């Protein structure tokens, strides 16, 4: 990237800079006219100059220009007007000029903003484009947070400067120069004084700022490092908690913040010192004018009028000068920021853009063998990881690579997957060097998987299909306003040097998807790949605990409602009806908490804090209004007493407290004092907060679970009555935040499982939850159509940042599945399933080998194995040891040799 920011701006905004400069110059005309006009209004119509006689007229707005050697050309002859109409006319002209000036200002500001934003977009894109091209090895030394901080924050001020980069100095310089020339014309000596002082300012101020620039650079780097550290803390939070190092991190952050504080404070001090000196210098000039100019006037070298004019002209000078110096400060500041960012991204270890060029074609098949010739690889520390290895992988061949961690087995896989650059030797596909081939070939025709694949924030589906999104294969069709918007986006992208690939187009080529059929589509392909790695059941499980957009899929909701009935029927058929106590309108759910019975529904998923607070206030108000509070209060007191009694001398950190759903151990003392205070007190004398502290204890009560004998039929009936009242009286905005249990409606805010169960599981029955779950799963699987729909809901499960919501094992499975779903000629598997147990590894190896060949394709598969036993599934076995190949044979021969050895051993 261009090292000088000014040049960078000029390079990309030349034409616009010239245009805006012209506009600014033109805008000067109405600006000065507007400055001049008030004088004419005051002198003319107001003070009456030229209107001395009654009925006298003045020519209004004559317009003529004088050309040298030619004379005057009258453009407008002007209109003769009397005093009042002249006043009106001139005032209106003033108004018009004010509006015109405003419009100019508006246009200029918008245009400058536009320039800045486009340049900012361009810089950011260029930086990210470079990130995408920099060789992965380079990133081992950079923290993600630091890079993000550069792209997002550090370049932000650059945009703001762009619009002023050339216009400002031209304009201010012009103004300052005009004032200087005027002073020179009036008097040479005074001119020299003014010129000298301006020179002093320009010489001294930048010197004073040198340290500021250094500090600015330090501030930028330390802030960037802080961003990097914060990301690191987030990424490593489990390690920090596990090793109790949070205070070490606190110390580190505090030290960094202290350092940043020191820098920033020094910047302030110096900045205002520079300002002070600058202002003082600016004030020094008038002092000299008064002294020297006054002296010259007294001795008669210049006349007083001239001196006044010079002093007036000088008034115009400090403004532009000061702004010019400020501009220069900003310029240096952004230049430093720009340099600091750009130098991080200027590396030679970067791919040529052509290697990542967009290729929308399917690309030819890779029919050549992959040949490794005398290959040596080195790690970061310069140690060899592979030495003089030659190996040929023929199309369609299946090779098991055996070797321990330092044998070179992993290294050869990385070389074949284009992850490692050869120190010597070569990896070629046919005649072509693998590392010189564009990504559109190696990244599609070869599928490389190690155990540590990265997952992007998004759904399981997004991540599973991630390896298929190489290029938009079909454009999205737009019409109407969407088309206009799209066209505008394309145009604007071009203006900032951004590409216009449509994110919403189709990025997946069905022909590149393994298992894709016209009928089954992508979903079948996904199910197929997930089946191979035994992840389907997990996805199904995710679905059961997910919600979906019922508005988008009303028929799925309807199907699930049918399933709710079928589930109930199945329970009855198996004599297991007691497993679930269903929610029944007008009935008390004995397995539900009291609060569940009072509310009888679920809160909407997108509720906000204000609605919750409003809902709680309404709910509490209703409890008081209906009078049920008294019974609940008594119940709460009784629960508190029993609990305090039971737990009176149990240490507060004792695990028994885990069984208390309604009281936290640290609340015990509070309730003990509360109980003492409230004993024997009339309810009405108890404060609002205390009342509800006690009442809310009763909310969690479930009679069959807690068995304190506090609920009777009368209270149950009363609770149901109150429930109805709470519901019917609720204001509409609370209704929206709440979904009531209704056997005939699907609960949008509840997950699939809760919707099907639609009741409380009776946990007292042995393994009730598992039994209910099994029945539901069986029912769903019995309907393939419904199973697919539900599976699709599970695919929307969000994996979280870096896939952290999945366990390591599931991440490895998914990582492997996303290679299986790609159609490639070469699959390089580098211990992709290292965390799985042997039995499961065996299953997945067997299944995936069959799966990759099931559709008649015959890809080559190179698999680095942790488990020797699995080699029997492969045609060829290559053994690595001490960074080189020690054995390479077809597995038949290999088995024979192994057999012979066995025989020999027996002989011995």
């Amino acid at each position, binding site marked *: 990237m261009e090292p000088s920011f000014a040049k960078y701006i000029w390079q990309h905004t030349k034409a616009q800079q010239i245009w805006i400069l012209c506009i600014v110059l033109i805008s000067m005309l109405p600006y000065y006219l507007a400055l001049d006009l008030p004088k004419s209004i005051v002198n003319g119509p107001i003070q009456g100059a030229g209107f001395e006689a009654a009925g006298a007229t003045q020519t209004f707005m004559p317009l003529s220009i004088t050309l040298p050697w030619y004379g005057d050309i009258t453009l407008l002859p002007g209109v003769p007007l009397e005093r009042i109409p002249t006043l009106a006319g001139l005032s209106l002209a003033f108004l018009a000029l004010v509006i015109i000036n405003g419009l100019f200002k508006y246009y200029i500001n918008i245009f400058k903003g536009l320039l800045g934003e486009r340049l900012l977009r361009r810089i950011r894109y260029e930086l990210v484009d470079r990130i995408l091209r920099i060789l992965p090895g380079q990133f081992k030394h950079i923290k993600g947070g630091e890079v993000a901080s550069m792209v997002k924050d550090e370049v932000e001020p650059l945009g703001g400067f762009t619009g002023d980069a050339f216009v400002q100095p031209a304009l201010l310089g012009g103004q300052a120069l005009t004032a200087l020339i005027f002073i020179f014309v009036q008097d040479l000596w005074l001119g020299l004084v003014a010129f000298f002082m301006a020179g002093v300012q320009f010489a001294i101020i930048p010197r004073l700022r040198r340290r500021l620039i250094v500090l600015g650079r330090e501030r930028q780097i330390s802030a960037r490092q802080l961003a990097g550290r914060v990301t690191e803390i987030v990424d490593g939070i489990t390690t920090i908690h596990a090793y109790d190092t949070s205070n070490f991190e606190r110390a580190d952050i505090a030290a960094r913040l202290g350092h940043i504080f020191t820098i920033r404070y020094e910047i302030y001090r110096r900045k205002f010192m520079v300002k002070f000196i600058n202002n003082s210098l600016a004030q020094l000039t008038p002092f000299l004018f008064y002294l020297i100019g006054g002296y010259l006037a007294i001795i008669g070298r210049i006349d007083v009028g001239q001196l006044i004019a010079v002093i007036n002209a000088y008034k115009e000078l400090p403004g532009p000068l000061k702004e010019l110096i400020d501009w220069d400060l900003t310029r240096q500041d952004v230049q430093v920021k720009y340099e600091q960012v750009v130098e991080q991204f200027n590396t030679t270890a970067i791919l040529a853009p052509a290697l990542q060029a967009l290729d929308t074609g399917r690309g030819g098949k890779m029919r050549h063998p992959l040949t490794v010739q005398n290959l040596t690889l080195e790690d970061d520390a310069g140690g060899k990881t592979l030495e003089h290895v030659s190996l040929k992988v023929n199309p369609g061949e299946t090779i098991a690579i055996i070797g321990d961690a330092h044998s070179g087995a992993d290294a050869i896989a990385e070389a074949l997957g284009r992850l490692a650059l050869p120190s010597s030797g070569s990896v070629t596909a046919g005649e072509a060097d693998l590392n010189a081939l564009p990504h559109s070939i190696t990244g599609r025709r070869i599928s490389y998987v190690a155990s540590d694949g990265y997952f992007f924030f998004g759904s399981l589906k997004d991540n599973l299909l991630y390896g298929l999104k190489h290029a938009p294969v079909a454009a999205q069709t737009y019409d109407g306003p969407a088309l206009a918007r799209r066209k505008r986006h394309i145009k604007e992208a071009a203006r900032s040097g951004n590409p216009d690939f449509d994110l919403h187009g189709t990025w997946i080529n069905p022909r590149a998807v393994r298992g894709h059929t016209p009928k089954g589509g992508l979903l079948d392909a996904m199910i197929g790949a997930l089946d191979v790695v035994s992840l389907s059941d997990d996805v199904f499980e995710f679905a059961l605990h997910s919600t979906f957009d019922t508005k988008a899929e009303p028929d799925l909701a309807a199907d699930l409602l049918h399933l709710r009935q079928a589930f109930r029927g199945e329970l009855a058929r198996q*004599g*297991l009806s007691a497993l679930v106590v269903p929610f029944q309108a007008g009935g008390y759910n004995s397995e539900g908490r009291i609060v569940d019975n009072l509310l009888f529904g679920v809160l909407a998923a997108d509720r906000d804090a204000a609605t919750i607070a409003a809902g709680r206030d309404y709910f509490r108000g209703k409890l008081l209004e209906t009078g049920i509070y008294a019974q609940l209060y008594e119940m709460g007191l009784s629960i508190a007493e029993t609990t305090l*009694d*039971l*737990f*009176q*001398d*149990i*240490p507060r950190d*004792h*695990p*028994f407290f885990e*069984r208390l759903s309604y009281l936290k151990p640290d609340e015990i003392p509070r309730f003990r004092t509360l109980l003492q205070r409230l004993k024997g007190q009339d309810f009405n004398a108890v404060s609002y907060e205390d009342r509800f502290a006690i009442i809310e204890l009763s909310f969690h009560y479930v009679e*069959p*679970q*807690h*068995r*304190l*004998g506090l609920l009777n039929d009368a209270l149950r009936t009363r609770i149901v009555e109150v429930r109805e009242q709470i519901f019917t009286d609720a204001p509409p905005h609370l209704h929206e935040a709440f979904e009531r249990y209704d056997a005939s409606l699907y609960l949008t805010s509840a997950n699939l499982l809760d919707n099907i169960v639609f009741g409380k599981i009776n*946990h*007292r*029955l*042995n393994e009730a939850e598992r039994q209910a779950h099994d029945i539901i799963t069986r029912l769903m699987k019995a309907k393939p159509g419904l199973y697919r729909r539900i599976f699709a809901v599970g695919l929307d499960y969000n994996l979280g940042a870096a896939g952290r919501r999945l366990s390591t094992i599931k991440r490895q499975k998914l990582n492997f599945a996303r290679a299986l779903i790609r159609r490639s000629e070469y699959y390089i598997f580098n211990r992709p399933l290292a965390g799985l147990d042997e039995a499961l590894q065996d299953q997945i190896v067997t299944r995936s080998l069959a799966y990759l060949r099931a559709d008649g394709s015959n890809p080559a598969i190179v698999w680095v194995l942790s488990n020797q036993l699995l080699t029997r599934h492969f045609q060829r076995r290559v053994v690595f040891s001490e960074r080189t190949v020690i054995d390479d044979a077809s597995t038949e021969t290999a088995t024979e040799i192994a057999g012979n050895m066995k025989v020999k051993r027996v002989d011995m």
Partner: protein
Amino acid sequence: MLLQDEVTLLRGIPLFASIETMRLKLLAFTCDRVTFSAGQVLFRQGDAANATYVILSGRAEILQTTGDSPLQIGENSKKIGEAGPRAVVGESALVSDRPRSQTLRAITEVETLRISHDTFQKLLTCCPGSLEKVVEHLGGRLARAS
């Protein structure tokens, strides 16, 4: 059955008779009530012992299997007894986690109080004094059994 009734019931069982009422109540409070339907297995011979059951109502049969696969209840399993209300079954699980030597299967619907090994151990940690006799009692029985 309410907590209070459970406490009364536990009090009548010799194993727990020595525990003071407050502790017994805490024990009952922290235990799960688990109901098994007729034919369901409470625990199987050979499984790791992780809980003791106090039968509150219903009847269960005690089976013992001789042969290779004790986990299967088959022809070679023999009924050696029955347990009814107030019976404590699998009590060795309170102090030891050696495998079950018997299988217990519900004949009628059986309502139990399930005292898990964990719960009992936790109770021991907070109030060892009051449970001393229980442990002694169990220890004696285990010693006799082996």
